[in-house]
Structures are given as C-alpha cells and as structure tokens.
C-alpha cells in the first residue's frame, strides 16, 4: 500500500492522467494533490474576492476529476486544466456582474488577522533571506496583479504562473496569439510601473 503511494508520487503527470482515465482513483488523488496548489495560486491572483478562492479551487479540481475522461491528449493536460480555471473565472465574473457589489463589514478585520498569521508562518519557514519574499511584498505584488484589467490579468497569470505558451493562452482565452502577445507585454509594462520601487 505505502509502496504503491510512493510509486504514484514519482510518476509524471501524463502517466497519472492516463491512469486516472482508466478509473484509477489513487492516481486521480495524486493528480489532484499535485495540482491543487497551482490552481489555488491561479485563483489567488485572478479573483479579487478572497473568500471565493477556496471554493473556486475546489470546483475546478472537481471538474478535473469529473471530466478527466474527456481529455483526449494527456500531453495537453496543463492547458486543459487552465482552460477549466479560466472558464470558472469567467463564470465568476459574470455572476459578479449580475449581483450588485457588496462590501463586507468584516473584511478589514479579516485581512489584518490573516496577514498576521501569514507573517508568523513566513518567519518560521524562510531561512535564506535573499530568496525569501516578505509577506508584505507578496501582498503588494498580488494587489498589483489584481489591479490589472481582467484580460491582462488572465494572460499574465497563465503565462508566468502556469507557464503556458502564447498559443495555449490564446486557446484558453478565445483570442489570437497577437492579442495575447500584446496583452502580456502591456501587463508587464503596467506591473513594472506599479512595482518600480522593487525592481
């Protein structure tokens, strides 16, 4: 049993995908375990409402698990996954537009609380200070990305965080490679302006 688990941990993603398609639940579990951090990070930089990030992450992973059979080429798993993420994000945006904007009264309290906790975690874990990014800077970068227009945000997150090619991003966002190229360039320009003091 434990030997089996280790075996799954060493497997490349493509193998896990194929096994999951053959109803191997352990492979599927390992696949989700590997990707959940990634998906969570994507939504953290895409979605402005922090309380929705976890729900969206779970929903995206659920869709992956349910629809893994419909993925034809296991090599394209990554772009397929990100397509799911992007579609979910678009759905979320549409929902938001329908609902009137609300402001949570607890929000400010909640934020300071969670950042305080984060700060403690960072101090414990990050020993090499050059590599370690303070929680403060992470917050600033996140805000800078969240301040970008949606299309730019999606493009830069898919490129920098997920490492997709321009072509894959174009497919996921239903646009052309040229558009993706200019969106990413402009997103970078804006981020550079916004983060001037840190570059």
């Amino acid at each position: 049993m434990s030997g089996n688990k280790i075996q799954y941990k060493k497997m490349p993603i493509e193998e896990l995908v194929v096994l999951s398609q053959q109803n191997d639940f352990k492979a599927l579990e390992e696949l989700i375990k590997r990707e959940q951090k990634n998906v969570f990070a994507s939504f953290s930089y895409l979605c402005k409402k922090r309380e929705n990030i976890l729900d969206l992450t779970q929903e995206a992973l659920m869709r992956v698990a349910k629809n893994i059979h419909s993925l034809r080429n296991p090599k394209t798993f990554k772009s397929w996954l990100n397509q799911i993420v992007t579609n979910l994000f678009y759905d979320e945006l549409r929902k938001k537009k329908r609902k009137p904007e609300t402001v949570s009264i607890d929000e400010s309290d909640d934020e300071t609380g969670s950042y305080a906790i984060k700060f403690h975690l960072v101090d414990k874990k990050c020993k090499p200070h050059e590599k370690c990014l303070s929680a403060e800077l992470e917050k600033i970068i996140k805000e800078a990305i969240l301040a970008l227009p949606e299309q730019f945000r999606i493009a830069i997150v898919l490129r920098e965080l997920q490492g997709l090619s321009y072509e894959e991003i174009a497919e996921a966002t239903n646009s052309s490679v040229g558009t993706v190229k200019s969106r990413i360039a402009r997103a970078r320009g804006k981020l550079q302006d916004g983060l001037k003091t840190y570059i």
Partner: protein
Amino acid sequence: MQQRLSCDQVSALMTFYIEDRLSTKLAEYVQQHLDICPVCREKYNKLINVVKKYSNIKNNISINNDTDFENSFITKQYEEFKSNLSAYIDNELNDIENIKIKKITISNPLARQDLEKMYTLKKILHSSFDKTKNDFKSDFSKNIINQIQNSKERKEIDPFIKIMALLFIIISSIITGIIGILYF
C-alpha cells in the same frame, strides 16, 4: 542711510539687483535711481538682456544635451526591441527576431537595462507565486475522490432500478391485458 545713490554705487550693485540678492530697502533705492538716471537705466537694460540671452542659451544646451544623450539610443531598432522584449523573455520569437534582440542588448545600454528590469520583474513574480502556492495548506483530494466515487456508485445503481421499473411496467401491463381478455 543716504537716500540717493550715486551712479557708481548703482553700477556696483547692479548685478546683485538683477539677481535679486539685495535687501528690500537697498533694492528700492536702486529702483529709484534707475527711474531717474537714463544712463544707468540703459546699462541696466543691456545687462538684463545679456543675462536673459545667456540663460536661454544655457537652457537650450542642457535640454539638447539630455535629449541627444537619450536620443542616440532611442532608435527604430530600440522601439522594435521594446515591442518584442516581452515575447523574447517568453521565448516566443523566431530565430531572426531573437538574434536582433540579442544584438541590441549588447550594443545599447538602455536596452540592456530594460532587459534586466524585465528579468527582475519575472523573478519577483515567481517568488511571489511560489509563496502563494506554499500558503495553501488544505487538501481537497480525498474529499473530491469520495464525492466522485459516491456519484459513480449512484450511477451504477441507476440502470438497475430503471430495468426493474421497466420490467414491472411490462409485467403489470401484460397481466392487465390477460385479465382484460379473460373477462371481456
């Protein structure tokens, strides 16, 4: 203090007056003298013209210098470099475009600076992403697998129930048919 200044005194004070470095009282006396004495006024006008011209020239030179310095690097190639830089970082250019970018980063310090900035941005973005990933502490995998397995089991039961229902309907209709035939 004597109220009236002599021409010599005024000419001695002239430059300070123009540069506005005199005390208000003294400046007032110089002004009074200039109002009366045409010789000194002429001198004053000449001097002020010279100063104006000089400052104009000086401004022009400094502006020209700045723009010249920057302009020498802002060429057409540099503009092209700027528009392609982002794609270059992502390795999305063809070979010819790649070589163009490499060439310009060697020859043009502005381009080199831009490239370095781009890499720094990439670096801090990535460290930020890594940090966010590590902040994720929960594990959805078990939960999702359980849900999937449950729904699968339900699906397996479904066809069985359907077949049973179908059989029940057929049998009951046959029985009612037989009853109907027997009685009428």
